[in-house]
């Protein structure tokens, strides 16, 4: 079982990195031929960095839009982020320069409770999907399943933290072994197997699903463009080639 899971983790990680990378490359390479920031928009590049930071960190537009979705969505993502940091202790060895950052009390203790925030947020989002007619209308099976999957990941993780308690030292050896190609066995725990298998699924579907919103947001022209079309001529390569003959005239 341990070997099987180790193999799956490797495969899914490669798929995740490779295909998400390809998507990011695609977004990067595709030009935005026209200036379409949703105005009022920043008139400087620095302003755009701040606008994007507010979107990514605070979900600013969502806050303006719908407070319920914002509360649940933000709880979920913040929980996810903290939980992610907390997980780094399995990957990073104590000699690593990152260790003090990861092992400090804040990340480790808040991280532990972040799981609750994450699950509560997800339950809220799932409830809205069922209860609000408009959101039910736009939901596909995959939209529900994705939330259910994340909830199960969160709950199985919390189980291990607060109920069944697994052998953390052995788990760390498994993970370090995974990266050193020196495969170790996993602690025995159903919760852990469920947790890891679903993380495998999560990584596998990431580049092929709406989870692309995470890289996508940074490439959204309505949010990442500087509002300066009068000052600076903006021209996409294909437009320069095909639709710029008046300049030579």
């Amino acid at each position: 079982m341990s070997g099987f899971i180790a193999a799956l983790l490797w495969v899914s990680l490669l798929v995740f990195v490779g295909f998400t990378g390809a998507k990011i490359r695609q977004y990067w390479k595709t030009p935005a031929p026209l200036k379409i920031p949703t105005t009022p928009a920043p008139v400087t590049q620095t302003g755009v960095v701040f606008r994007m930071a507010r979107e990514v960190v605070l979900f600013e537009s969502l806050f303006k839009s719908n407070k319920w979705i914002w509360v649940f969505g933000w709880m979920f993502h913040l929980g996810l982020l903290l939980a992610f940091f907390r997980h780094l202790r399995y990957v990073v060895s104590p000699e690593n320069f990152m260790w003090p950052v990861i092992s400090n009390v804040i990340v480790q203790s808040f991280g532990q409770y972040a799981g609750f925030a994450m699950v509560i947020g997800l339950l809220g989002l799932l409830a809205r999907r069922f209860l609000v007619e408009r959101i039910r209308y736009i939901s596909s099976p995959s939209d529900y399943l994705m939330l259910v999957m994340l909830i199960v990941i969160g709950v199985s993780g919390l189980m291990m933290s607060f109920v069944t308690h697994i052998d953390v030292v052995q788990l760390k050896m498994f993970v370090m072994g995974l990266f050193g190609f020196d495969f170790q066995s996993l602690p025995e725990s159903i919760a852990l197997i469920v947790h890891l298998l679903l993380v495998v699924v999560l990584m596998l579907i990431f580049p092929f699903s709406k989870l692309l919103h995470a890289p996508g947001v940074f490439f959204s022209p309505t949010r990442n463009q500087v509002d300066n079309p009068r000052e600076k001529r903006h021209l996409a390569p294909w437009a320069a080639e095909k639709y710029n003959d008046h300049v030579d005239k």
Partner: protein
Amino acid sequence: MADFETPEIKEFIGIPALQEGSMAHSSPFIAKENHQEALGYPGELVENWQQVALDKMDDLRTRYRSFQVFLDSCVKCGACTDKCHYFLGTSDPKNMPVARQDLLRKVYRRYFTFAGKYFPKLVGAEDLTEEVLDDWYSYFHQCSQCRRCSVFCPYGIDTAEISMAAREIMDVVGKGQKYCNEIIGKVFTIGNNLGLPGKALANVLEGLEEDVEDDTGVAVKFPLDVKGADILLVTPSADFFAEPHIDGLIGYAKVFHETGASWTLSTTASEAGNFGMFIGSYENMRRVSMRIRDAAKELGVKRIIFGECGHAWRIAYSFLNTLCGPFDFLDQRYPIPQHILEYTWGELEKGSLRINKEENDHMTLTFHDSCNVARGSRMGDYPGGQFDYPRNVIKAVCNNYVDMDPKTTKEATFCCGGGGGLLTDDLMEIRVKGVLPRATALKSVVENEGVTHMAAICAICKSQFTKTLPYYGFTMDQIVSVHQLVSEALVMKGSEQEADLDGTDSDDTEE
């Protein structure tokens, strides 16, 4: 035509319960062969239309980052579902922005994504069938491309971009919209959307000169095709004949006159509007814009100023430089192009215009932010200037001004319901229903704050409001142009109004 029920206007803008398919019957007239071909599109639905459509979709996603990123990124959070005026007015779920996008996204998923190819049911992917095409035609012509949804989406997904792409796809398979395509054709052959030939235009302008002189005693000129003028004014052709647009045009002319500006209109560029944007066609949008560059060069002007028009200003401000710049032959000390409100507000600030606000005292004004100006452009040199300039000008010429509910103004403004190529009689039902949110906000200030008139800075808004607000009990003359207000209050040197104010004798007899 009017075999539909006007929605009931309530105290507040409420979120309706869904009524599936309630607007499925709404579709505009299909473009005829000659309308299509003038724009370089096939005259009727091509035989292998599915393949052509998919090829176009593929082409667009490699050329427009917005299209590719927006198709992938939506998480179906639902934040946009209650933001579209057409949904609020019709209850049809396919008018919720995300559902509108999904009409196209489900096809994108089916043919271009792994999940949609192998698990279509799971991710809501669907084949491109005739019914889907019909749905596209119907619902992508129930989007005014107003971008309200993009303000509220956490990733800024702009349904306008999707509906522009959808319309371009429909054009290349031979299923274009008559209203837009016929009009673009007129611009190419005659010079403006209305098909008003140069002769007729000259007559209109001459008539206006007489009217203004009768009114004020001042010989205000409306110059046409004057070589060597400093300023080329490009304004929507509705300004030449429609009410209240024409009163705005009179306002621009008076302001130019009073500031001693040398200006001209052009017959070949007698249209600020550019429906090339509505059909999502870079090529046609550029071709329409090019007339302005050519006219500016030919007349040898130094500046270009745009009149009151929403989508025209978006294209002028955001795209003109891209489409047909650089404008290195113009005077670089002025913004290129400039909005008439930037010009007028600049002059008001300098104090070069004498204003008698009392002329507008019989009105209490409110202001409708046009969607394309609010969310797709700017005025002045700071973000949000597009909200201040019109308000500053109105307040400088009127004593009574009240804003509508902030949830319906500035970046959150509701579209008038007639933008994006929907301002046609064959779409009357969706237009009447789409104006509901604005009508509700207006009604509230009318009843509670004594507002009597609403000012607008867009030819489409003005036409749409004068036609549809009467369905809700307002009257046509409650809609005014911002420069109409300027025109009323402006006291020109040597005018009868000046004489009246200063108590000096005027040699004319009063009417």
